């Protein structure tokens, strides 16, 4: 089925009591409106192309991808509150994403000849010269009714056809050929916000005019042990920013968590990843359960001076 509309029709015919939403729609709808929209649907398909879309987006792509993964987890929890206790998360392919742009020597000259199509990880055509680091495969041997040839890089190199070297996919890489499947079972009654009143957030700017700003967090509790929290920025129901630095508290960059010591004030710096957000709320989550410990009572307007 070549197109999304055809695939949607096929699924609707297969499972009449189904619903189809994008990840953004799941994020944007309140839990009540989501439950109403899903109605009596037995299955719901949630589609997301954000990771593919942002992959080519330069240095902030990884941060945005992390945000999308958090949004997926949030969508699973939200659907659980709407009664969908089993979620299957999958993708049609993976991708290769280096921590930094790789050496320019990873670019390979395309085979030339009669080129029908050229992607970074695949050449299709007739003739030409197969580069030493590539393999030529007759399309017919892969079940296609044509006399064309495919040429693929054997390793993780790419043909010279634009784009950067950090992110790419396609060709016969392990990441491309394995379809990942994660099944999540959730309790359908997810706990609501908890821990309110213990955590206070102060020095919050009235308006966000810079992509990076700081607030002060403090925790009031009778226990003496440090408490781990994960502060994030939320627009609608999507995460649009996270903490990038903490002063006066331990900060775990990989998990995005801050260790708050009771009675001590910590300054945390937020990075707003999404320039398109008009307003955001500061939300502090319990990293173990994602229960909300704090949510801004009102939205902070975003008015960036330099865009």
């Amino acid at each position, binding site marked *: 089925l070549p197109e999304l509309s055809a695939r949607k029709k096929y699924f609707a015919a297969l499972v009449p009591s189904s619903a189809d939403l994008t990840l953004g729609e799941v994020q944007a709808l309140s839990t009540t409106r989501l439950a109403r929209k899903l109605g009596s649907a037995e299955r719901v398909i949630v589609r997301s192309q954000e990771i593919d879309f942002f992959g080519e987006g330069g240095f902030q792509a990884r941060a945005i991808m992390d945000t999308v993964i958090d949004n997926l987890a949030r969508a699973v929890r939200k659907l659980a509150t709407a009664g969908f206790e089993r979620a299957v998360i999958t993708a049609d392919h993976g991708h290769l994403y280096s921590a930094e742009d790789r050496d320019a020597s990873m670019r390979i000259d395309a085979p030339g000849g009669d080129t029908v199509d050229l992607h970074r990880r695949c050449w299709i055509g007739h003739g030409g010269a197969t580069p030493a680091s590539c393999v030529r495969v007759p399309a017919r041997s892969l079940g296609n009714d044509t006399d064309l040839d495919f040429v693929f890089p054997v390793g993780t190199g790419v043909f010279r056809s634009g784009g950067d070297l950090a992110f790419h996919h396609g060709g016969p890489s392990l990441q491309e050929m394995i379809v990942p499947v994660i099944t999540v079972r959730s309790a359908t009654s997810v706990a609501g916000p908890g821990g309110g009143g213990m955590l206070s957030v102060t020095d919050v700017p009235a308006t966000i005019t810079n*992509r*990076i*700003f700081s607030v002060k967090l403090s925790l009031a509790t009778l226990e003496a042990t440090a408490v781990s929290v994960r502060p994030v920025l939320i627009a609608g129901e999507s995460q649009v920013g996270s903490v990038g*630095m903490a002063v006066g508290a331990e900060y775990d960059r990989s998990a995005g968590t801050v260790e708050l010591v009771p009675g001590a004030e910590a300054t945390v710096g937020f990075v707003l990843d999404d320039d398109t957000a008009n307003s955001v709320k500061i939300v502090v989550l319990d990293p173990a359960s994602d229960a909300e410990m704090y949510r801004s009572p009102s939205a902070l307007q975003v008015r960036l*001076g*330099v865009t």
Partner: protein
Amino acid sequence: MTIAWTEVPPRDDLDDKVNSAFAGKVVRKDLVRKVKVGANVPVFVLEFLLGKYCASSDPVAIEMGLQVVNDTLANNYIRPDE
């Protein structure tokens, strides 16, 4: 994490007034020299990045913003000998 505070010139009343009147639109030109070191990058590029990430008088935001600017340059700017 322990951070070393970036040395920035002391703010005066005029700085605060400008930051207050033109919040988010003030380019911290005093920081250009901090990111210029060792990077053969046009000043207008540095000023654009500083305007984008360091348009603030908040020291934590400045510290983080400088990290972002330096990371941006390190990841995206090609030196002539590379």
